């Protein structure tokens, strides 16, 4: 029974990750080859569409397109926060996935992903959201 259950769980996991991998490859292909600014096929941000103000996530699809084509400057222009957060997100995902951490890694996780760090992230998101809609923002 246990074995059977284990096999089913494994099979489910394999199917799940295969589907995720296929979708990921498709998404990368689409975002690399098609520019969201020249196409009507990409979802547009409802906030930007209705209010004319950019949210903190606006431009992220165009930024991904630029990044996949290795144009970091253009990506920063579309969504600065996304580009700057990439190393932070990669390191965070690494700590999340690593179940057993060395004391040193635990210490760094405590510093970079502790309460204080999360509040700094929060402040960055809100500040970016506000300032990208003002004339102080030079990347407009």
């Amino acid at each position: 029974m246990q074995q059977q259950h284990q096999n089913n769980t494994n099979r489910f996991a394999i199917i799940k990750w295969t589907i995720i991998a296929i979708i990921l490859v498709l998404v990368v292909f689409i975002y690399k080859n098609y520019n969201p600014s020249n196409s009507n096929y990409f979802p547009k941000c409802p906030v930007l569409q209705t209010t004319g103000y950019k949210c903190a996530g606006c431009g992220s699809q165009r930024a991904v397109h630029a990044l996949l084509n290795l144009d970091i400057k253009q990506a920063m222009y579309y969504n600065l926060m996304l580009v700057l957060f990439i190393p932070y997100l990669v390191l965070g995902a690494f700590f999340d996935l690593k179940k057993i951490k060395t004391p040193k890694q635990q210490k760094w996780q405590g510093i970079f992903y502790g309460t204080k760090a999360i509040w700094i992230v929060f402040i960055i998101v809100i500040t970016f959201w506000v300032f990208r809609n003002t004339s102080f923002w030079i990347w407009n």
Partner: protein
Amino acid sequence: MENQVDFTQTTENGFKETMPKTWLVESILVTLFCCLPLGIVGIINASNVTSKYEAGDVAGSQKASEEAKKWVKYGFFAGLAVAVLYIIFIVIIGGGAIAAAASEQY
């Protein structure tokens, strides 16, 4: 709760327990790619997990972690729903959209 044995083992001082998942990375991704309000809720939830853990309240931080997971899930499915609705919308008015795209790129 049986399947969470590893998670709920509490030692005398909570600090020996590894920190529950904060879902911070996922929350930032939700903020960037989907729904700003849900992402911000996620970030605040993540800080609940860490602050409780740092105060030694491991059980509380595990509860906060479950809560954080719930909101990230909402964000994920909201994003998925928007994308699917958008695709349906595009398919329905497909002809019109193709014409519009073609006329934009002359």
